[in-house]
């Protein structure tokens, strides 16, 4: 048992808490920026899980984290651009006002 493994349980627990916070934020908050931050939070919670479990399963988990960070960076660029465009159009980033796809 390596010293790091004693930290596995707390690491997974922290990851679960962070992920839940992210989900709650996405569901409950209406500001697009906050929503965006919450999504980042969920991604990083998953990253933490990957890193923690990499000790058991080898380096592939850590490599996956790099992929996730790359995607998150790209997502940040695209997502912020969309939010910016919406704001220019509606003078607001409140998601309740953005309901063009209502049935």
């Amino acid at each position, binding site marked *: 048992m390596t010293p790091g493994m004693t930290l596995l349980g707390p690491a997974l627990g922290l990851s679960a808490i962070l992920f839940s916070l992210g*989900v709650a934020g*996405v*569901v*409950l908050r*209406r500001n697009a920026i906050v929503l965006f931050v919450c999504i980042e939070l969920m991604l990083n919670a998953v990253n933490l899980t990957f890193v923690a479990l990499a000790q058991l399963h080898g380096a592939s988990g850590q490599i996956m984290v790099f992929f996730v960070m790359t995607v998150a960076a790209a997502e940040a660029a695209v997502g912020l651009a969309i939010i910016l465009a919406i704001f220019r159009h509606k003078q607001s980033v409140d*998601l*309740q006002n*953005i*309901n*063009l*796809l*209502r*049935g």
Partner: protein
Amino acid sequence: MTSWVWLAVALPLAGFLVNGALSLRRPDAKGVVSLVGAGVSVAAFLVSLGVFAELVARPPEHAAIVRLWSWLPVGTLQVDLAFQVDQLSAVMLLVVTGVGSLIHLFSVGYMREDPGYARYFAYLNLFIVFMLVLVLGSSLPVMFIGWEGVGLCSYLLIGFWFSDKANADAGKKAFIMNRIGDSGFMIAMFLVWRAFGALDFATIDSRAADVLVPGGAIVTAITLFLFLGCTGKSAQIPLYTWLPDAMAGPTPVSALIHAATMVTAGVYLVARTNVLFAMAPVSSTVVAGIGAVTALFAATIGLRQYDIKRVLAYSTVSQLGYMFLGVGTGVYATGIFHLVTHAFFKALLFLGSGSVIHAMHHAYHATHAHEDAQDMRNMGGLKRYMPWTFWLMTIATLAIAGIPPFSGFFSKDEILAMAFARGADLPVYYLFYGLGVLAALLTAFYMARLMAMTFLGENRTGERERAHLHDAPWIMTGPLVVLGVLSAVGGALNLPEVFGGHQALEHWLEPVTAPAAAFTRLEVPHGATEYYLIGAAVLIGIVGLVAGWRATLARPIPTARAAPPERGLALVLNRKYYIDELYDTIVVRPVVWLSRAVLWRGVDQGVVDGAAVNGMARLSQGLGWLGSRLQTGQVGVYVVLFLVGALWVLGAVIR
């Protein structure tokens, strides 16, 4: 030659296709149209002659069946498209193609100036096709093709000048009344199928005695339904009212379809299924009774009509009644005999009236007068201007009035004599005989009236028009001459023994009528009775002619415009006993009301359009609206749903 009989059908069919194409592409190519139209008809006549000659040379024991192809192979029901060549169909072949050819030739002159010339000949050729299918069909369904086809051609030709609404309506009336009768024909076919398991005439003839009980309910029902079909096609009470209206068509059409051939199809049908009628005495009595009553009823209406073609139309209804009296009496060959002689003299009368109308029309056309060219009150004294037409129509008049030695005398006299003979078994036939004799008197009367009003006395056409009246050109008068000769000597076909003949037509048809002869056997009355019957018939004809002639010319006849309104019985007869009005009130109006109020507004617009079509649309619209309520456009709601779903799937996987 017998196996080539299909050529008689195929040639007019080719003529129809060529003329039909020409009427669409080159309506002015009248030379080609005349050549093709009349040519195929004459060619069909030559084929018929060949078939007939072979039958004479080698009289077959059984009818020759010319099988073309299998038409309806359905389980145990096998219907071939086949033609039956025997003595009866050969006679009909000759009449249809012979009289048909003459009328085609007449039409070349009569319709020359009509813009629909090619269309006219296309229809006329098509009619010959279907009429030949009708008489040649070897089974009830094949006959039914022709039966319906001639109805179609009749409709097309009655409404030939369809731009006038009255003509189009007359066509519809004929078509619809025939449909009523045709339903009877179809029910009869179903019953025959149930009883025999087959529909061809050979099977019916050979197995009727084993399958059916003489006088039983089934055979009575079959024959009565068949006769319902006959009343429609052959214009008998109660379905006769379409025939007088059918005179809206061109006059040669009236001669060919509505006098000589199509309307006699009912008589042919009864003669063709003679074994069934012989086994159903009740039906035969009904046939004879309807025939006798129709003969008298139509003759009374003919007394007071002024349109020359209408008189002849009611005369046709009346003469068809005689034919049914004949076949109902059980003398099928005699009914066919009258059919043949009637085809000659009635075609002659119609074509003669066509010549008269042609001349009158031209006279009024030349002076731009708007008078009725068919009203006999506008004619009079035409004998001076149209001697050929007058003398030829006189022959036909003497024939229809039953004056010997003209053809109608022999056939009509034989029908009446046989009805009288039948009275010995069934006294009700004495009544039918009486009705027939009375009708013969009226026939002679109205024909004398027609001839006197048209050809004798002073001319009432008008001073300026008179110069334009003249006989028709030879292409029209020629066929009249041929028909005149046939009307005069046609009686020789079946000259009875008392006049030195040996009833050639009756013996010729014996193989066809043999199945019926097993059930009923009638002998011509001989000796004093026969002379009395002949004497009475001749006397009645002469009395009727003289009375009609004297009564018509007794007083000056006012022209159609100057005529005072009819009163009393004359008005009732002139208005045809108000039968049309009666039918209109009790049938047409309720049906129209039912169609509009219930079937159209209620069933079609309410149930079909409203409940079914629009109902389905509204239902799917409503379901779609419900579904669209889920799409709020709020991303949060979607996320919640997504989350719930994801957790649910996750939970399911883990467990």
